[in-house]
C-alpha cells in the first residue's frame, strides 16, 4: 500500500501525541482526578463540598492525606465529604503516589477564593485572639507548631471543619495528636454564630 501525503501528516501528528503521552506530562495527567472534585486548579468546588487545596502548605496536605489513608479522618459518621476522600487517601498511599500528588497540587495556579459567608467581623476578631498563638495574627500558619494557614482557604470549609471539631467528627481519633489540640481549643467557639464570626474575620486576613 502506498501512503499518500496526507496519511504521512496524520502519522506524524499521531507520533507527536504518542511522545506527549509518554513524557512527563503523562505523570501529571494521572492526578487530573484531584481536579475533578477540587475544581479547576484545585481552587475548590462547593458543589460537592471539596475545599480549595491549591495554595495549601505541602506539609499540611501530606499530613491530612496520611490521616485519610490511615482512617484517622473520613471514618466517623456524619462526614459524607470526608468519607469520599478516605478511599482516595488510601489509594494514594497504596499506589505510593501520595507525595507526588502533593507536589502536583503545588504546581497549580492558586487564586483567592470568593467569600461565601457574612458574619460579625468585630466579634470574630475578638474570638480570633485564641487562634493567633498557633495560626498567626494574619492566619499565615506556623509549621513548627503544626498549625496550617487559615487565610485564603474556602471559608465554608473552615466552618464545616470547626463544626466537625466541635461535634467530635474530627480530632477525636487518639492518633490525631494535632486534631486533639484543636478539639481542646474549640471550646472557645461554642456555637454556630461564633464559628461564622471567626471565619468572617479570617476572610479579612491576607
Amino acid at each position, binding site marked *: 500500500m502506498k501512503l499518500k501525503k496526507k496519511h504521512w501528516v496524520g502519522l506524524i501528528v499521531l507520533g507527536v501525541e504518542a511522545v506527549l503521552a509518554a513524557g512527563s506530562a503523562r505523570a501529571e495527567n494521572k492526578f487530573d482526578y484531584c481536579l475533578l*472534585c477540587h475544581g479547576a486548579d484545585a481552587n475548590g468546588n462547593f458543589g460537592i463540598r471539596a475545599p480549595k487545596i491549591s495554595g495549601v502548605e505541602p506539609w499540611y496536605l501530606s499530613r491530612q492525606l496520611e490521616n485519610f489513608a490511615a482512617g484517622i479522618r473520613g471514618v466517623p459518621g456524619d462526614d459524607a465529604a470526608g468519607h469520599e476522600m478516605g478511599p482516595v487517601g488510601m489509594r494514594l498511599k497504596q499506589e505510593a503516589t501520595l507525595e507526588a500528588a502533593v507536589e502536583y497540587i503545588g504546581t497549580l495556579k492558586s487564586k483567592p477564593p470568593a467569600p461565601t459567608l457574612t458574619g460579625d467581623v468585630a466579634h470574630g476578631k475578638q474570638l480570633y485572639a485564641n487562634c493567633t498563638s498557633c495560626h498567626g495574627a494574619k492566619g499565615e500558619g506556623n509549621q513548627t507548631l503544626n498549625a496550617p494557614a487559615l487565610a485564603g482557604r474556602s471559608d465554608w470549609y473552615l466552618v464545616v471543619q470547626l463544626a466537625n471539631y466541635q461535634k467530635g467528627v474530627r480530632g477525636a481519633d487518639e492518633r490525631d495528636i494535632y486534631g486533639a489540640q484543636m478539639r481542646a481549643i474549640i471550646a472557645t467557639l461554642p456555637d454556630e454564630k461564633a464559628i461564622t464570626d471567626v471565619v468572617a474575620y479570617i476572610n479579612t486576613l491576607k
Partner: protein
Amino acid sequence: MNRTVSRRGFLNLAGAVGGSTAVYRAAMALGLMSQARAERPDIAALTKPKKVLILGGGISGLTAAYELSRKGYDVQVLEASFRAGGRNMTVRNGDRIDETGFPQVCNFDKDPDLYFNCGPARIPGHHKALLNYCKELDVELEPFINDNRNAWVQDDAMFGGKPIRAREYMTDSRGFVAELMAKSMKPESMTAPMTKDDYERLREYVKYLGNLDPSFKYVGSSNAGLARHDYTAPELLKTPLSASELLKSRFMLIMSFGETDDQAAMMMEPVGGMDRVVAGFLRKVGHLVQLQSQVQAIKVQGKGVEVTYRRNGEYVTAKADYVLNCIPMHLLAGIEHNFPKEYAAGFTAIPRGKLFKIGFQMKERFWEKEGIYGGISWTLQDIQQLWYPAHGIHRKKGVMLGAYTFDPNAGEKFARLAPADRFKLAIAQGEKIHPGYGSYVESGVSIAWHQMNHMLGCAAQWDEALWKKWFKTLQTPVGNHFLMGDQVSYHPGWQEGAMASAHHAIAEIDARERSSKNAVAA
C-alpha cells in the same frame, strides 16, 4: 368511616389499594386523562458549517452529536473519561471501573451473557426517542422483566424477617383493604355526580380489585399463588397471611413500583447490554469523540464560547460557535467560567444522586429453581433489590444484581467500604432472601455513582421547589452556551430525559441558524 366519597377521593383510594395503574385505569374510565408527545426536532441543513463543541460523551451529548453532525455542523465531543457513554455503562470481563478511591476490574467470565448494566438497565415502551434511536442505530432489543410476582419480598419488620412471595403480599393486602372498602362504602355517602349506578359499579370494581368472594369477603385468592401445584388434584388456596403482619412492612410504599409509568410492562433491554446504545451512536459519530479531555474553563464570548481542557497533562483551548455542556452541574461548579451569577448559583443548588449498585456473577442460576425467571425481589435492608437476569435463562451461570439502593444513606454506607467489604455486606443481606446465597457468588462489581471518576453523582435530585426555582434558569442558554443532560430535564435518571434535553437544545440552535438564514429547510 362516615365520609362522602368524591371522584378525587375515589381516585386516591383506588391508588392506595391498586397502585397508579388502578388510578390510571379509573381516571381513563372517568375521562380525565389525555396524552401528548414531543416530536424529534427537524434540524435544517446548514449552508455554512458551524463549530459545535459538546462537553461530555454521554447519551445527551451523543444524541446531539448525531443529529447535528449529519446536518452540516462541525461537531467535536470532548469526553473526560477513558470511555464514552456517561452513566450508560455496561461491564464485562476485563472492564475497568474507574472509581476515584477504589478502582476495580470486572472479573466476570468472558461470555456475552455475563454482563452488568451499571447505570440504565431498562427501557419502557413509551420512551419514544430512545426507542427510535435503537431502531435507527440497529440496537437489537429484547424483553426485560421488571415486575415478577413470583420474586420475594423480605422485611425484618414482618413475619420475623422470613421472605414471602410478592404475589402473596400484594394479593392478600389488597384483598384485606378491598374488603374494608366494600364494608365501609354506603350509597348515602356518595356525593354528586356519583349516582346509585356508580355505587354499584364501584362495589364491583372493589370486589375484583381485591378478589373478594360474592359476599365481599376476602378468603384468599389464587392470585396469591396456590398452596400446591398438583394439577391432578383440586385447586388448593393458600390461607391469607395476617393483615396486621403485612401492614407492618413499609413494602407497601414500593408495592406498586412495577405499575408506575416508567416501570410497567412492557419493558425492554438491548441484547448484550445497555451500552449497545452507546456503541450504536459511536458507529455514527465515534470519530467525533475525543476521550480523556477534562474541561477546566468555559468562557462565553460575544459570538461563541471558548473552552479550555486538559489532555495528556497539557492545557488546550478551543473555540466554538456553540457549546452544548453535559458536564454534571456539581462538577461544573468547580470549573472556571464567566457565567452570570444567578445561573451558576443553580449548579450547587441541585443535590447529586448517590445511587449504588452491585453485580454478582453466580456460578448457578439458583433463582430459577425457586421459580423466579427475571424480575426483582425487594427487601427493606440496605441492598433494597435483587434483580434476576431475563436473558440467558436456563444457562449455567448468570450475573444478577445484588444491591441497588435508592436511599442516599444506604449508598453512602456502601460507598465508604472497600469493594470486598461491600460484597460481604450485600451477601449477608442477600442470605435473608436466598439461604446459601453467598456460596453461589464467583465475582462481583460495585458502582458507587457518587464516587465514579468524572461523574461523582447519579441523577440530579430535583424536587418540586427546586424545579420551580431553577429549571427555567438552567435550561435557558447563556449566549451560545447550552446546559444539557438528563440533569436539565423533567426526567432525570433516564436516557429519555437526556435525549429530551438534547432535542430541546438543538432545536434552539436550529431556530437561531434558520433565523440568520444559514440553513436550508430539511
